[in-house]
């Protein structure tokens, strides 16, 4: 009996591990996706070169900017100027605070209206950079992760030295992992001549279709527009897919082990209770009832493991981590996101493992000839 308790605990533990891994990997995928999805606003459109899949492989000519900004669908600020930010994204290498190894950090040169276009951005420490100066703002998620990215310090990249004058948040969006400065100063610092993208605030979200039609239809432009939300969702796809596939693979391998563990425990339970099974059969319980009883036991045991696994995984919720975003090859910080649906999925998964592991032992239990079962001591 003590031995049986041991194997039962091990089985539950094994299933707990699987469920924890399952929930955590999906929480990563979920969190990463969330980070990129909130980066987009429904009212914003991002303009890229035709068929460019990311800002890094796009180009917007200086001469394109006034044409796009003049379009009637673009919202205007109180000063009558278009709410649009022409931007350049360059990848800079900065040593990580943790291991001093260089990592890719996206630096975004933005226009003077950038903070009006991205209205989820808030400077929480210091102030906005002043246009025309070598001042920069740093996203909260990048602060402390890389050397030099703290308020008041200076950092060298491109052919210049920059002063960090403010820290901003962006509702966990990918921007929080970026460094922002004046695009007109970043361009020469990186020997560029031209932008990569334009992000515009539309007067109304419903105007996107006509805005895009106008941009793509204009013979002077070789550009197209995407809803900012669609763009960032697409950016997250490659990595979330990889995380999901990898997570599924690891989970599956662990699950096979856990199922065999459950099977072992249940075979032991059947052997241990052979006489009990015989007794129940002698009282008139049918074979299918015996199968159901052992399946229920196996599933209950697995569910205990599942609950344990969820509890194990739960503390990582909200914990932040960083990864290289495949579509920009730079570091994006994001938080693990464990949703109720994810936990429910983990629990269902544990019960399924219990059912699969318990099935064969349960069938064996029902197949033992009653007379023989009763002879067991």
């Amino acid at each position, binding site marked *: 009996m003590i031995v049986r308790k041991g194997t039962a605990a091990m089985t539950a533990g094994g299933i707990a591990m699987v469920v924890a891994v399952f929930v955590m990997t999906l929480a990563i995928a979920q969190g990463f996706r969330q980070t990129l999805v909130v980066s987009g606003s429904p009212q914003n459109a991002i303009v890229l070169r035709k068929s460019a899949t990311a800002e890094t492989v796009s180009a917007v000519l200086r001469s394109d900017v006034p044409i796009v900004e003049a379009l009637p669908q673009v919202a205007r600020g109180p000063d009558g100027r278009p709410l649009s930010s022409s931007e350049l994204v360059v990848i800079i290498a900065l040593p990580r605070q943790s291991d001093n190894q260089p990592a890719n950090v996206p630096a975004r040169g933005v226009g003077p209206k950038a903070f009006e276009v991205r209205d989820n951005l808030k400077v929480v420490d210091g102030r906005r950079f002043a246009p025309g100066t070598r001042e920069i703002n740093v996203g909260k998620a990048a602060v402390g992760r890389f050397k030099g990215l703290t308020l008041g310090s200076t950092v060298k990249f491109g052919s210049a030295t920059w002063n960090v004058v403010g820290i901003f948040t962006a509702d966990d969006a990918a921007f929080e992992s970026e460094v922002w400065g004046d695009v007109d100063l970043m361009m020469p610092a990186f020997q560029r001549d031209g932008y990569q993208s334009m992000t515009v605030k539309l007067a109304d979200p419903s105007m996107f279709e006509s805005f895009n039609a106008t941009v793509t239809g204009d013979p002077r432009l070789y550009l197209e527009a995407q809803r900012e939300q669609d763009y960032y969702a697409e950016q997250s796809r490659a990595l979330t897919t990889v995380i999901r596939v990898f997570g599924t693979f690891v989970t599956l391998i662990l699950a096979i082990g856990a199922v065999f563990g459950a099977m072992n425990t249940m075979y032991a339970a059947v052997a241990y209770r052979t006489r*009990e099974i*015989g*007794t129940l059969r*002698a009282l008139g319980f049918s074979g299918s009832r015996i199968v159901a009883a052992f399946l229920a036991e196996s599933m209950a045991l697995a569910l205990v493991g599942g609950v344990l696994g969820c509890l194990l995984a739960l503390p990582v919720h909200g914990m932040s981590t960083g990864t290289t975003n495949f579509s920009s090859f730079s570091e994006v910080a994001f938080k693990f996101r464990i949703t109720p649906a994810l936990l429910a999925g983990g629990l269902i998964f544990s019960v399924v493992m219990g059912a699969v592991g318990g099935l064969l032992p349960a069938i064996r239990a029902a197949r033992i000839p*009653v*007379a023989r079962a009763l002879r067991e001591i």
Partner: protein
Amino acid sequence: MALIDLRDVTKSYRRDQIEIPVLDGVTITVDGGDFLGLMGPSGSGKSTLLNLLAGIDRPTRGSIRIGEVEISRLSERALAGWRARHIGFIFQLYNLIPVLTAFENVELPLLLTSLSKKQRRDHVMTALGIVGLGDREKHYPRQLSGGQEQRVAIARAIVTDPTLLLADEPTGDLDAKSAGEVLTLLQRLNQEFKKTIVMVTHDPHAAERAARLLHLEKGTLVEQVKVGA
């Protein structure tokens, strides 16, 4: 018509290609309300015979009719249902489920019926009352003496009011005093409640309580002694 009609029943087991004959052409009839004792040396096939009567095992040849039903023709599933309604089985080692209380153990066979919770409770308490353990419903088997455990097992066997009580050495593991109590109980079930009982036993004292005695020797009925009932 006799309640049990066992006709020319043969049973053999196969072990490593060798046929082990256990019962060889046994014919027995038992009337309703009988208390039949079944004696014989170890390995003579007493338990096997009892299992055949309970539909737990199947004869190699021959027919077994109990009441209106030819049980050797029933499917496994039908047999289980039939057993639940007609058979009360009492084991030498009581076979109570250790994690269930006396009440829950006795209630087990009723879970196969359509009785309500309240009706089940009434039945269980009646059965426990008959065996004199109405105050032990919340006890677990390990908190009971052997004699008490066997009485709980008897309550479990009678709670569905079965046609036939089958007991396989019900006193085999008990001291003389407890054995006496259990036998008195069985006798009372036979005489007062008109239960038909077939009891296997090694113990001559136990055998004395039966109204009728059969001897099984090497798979055949060799002797039939009527004891004065």
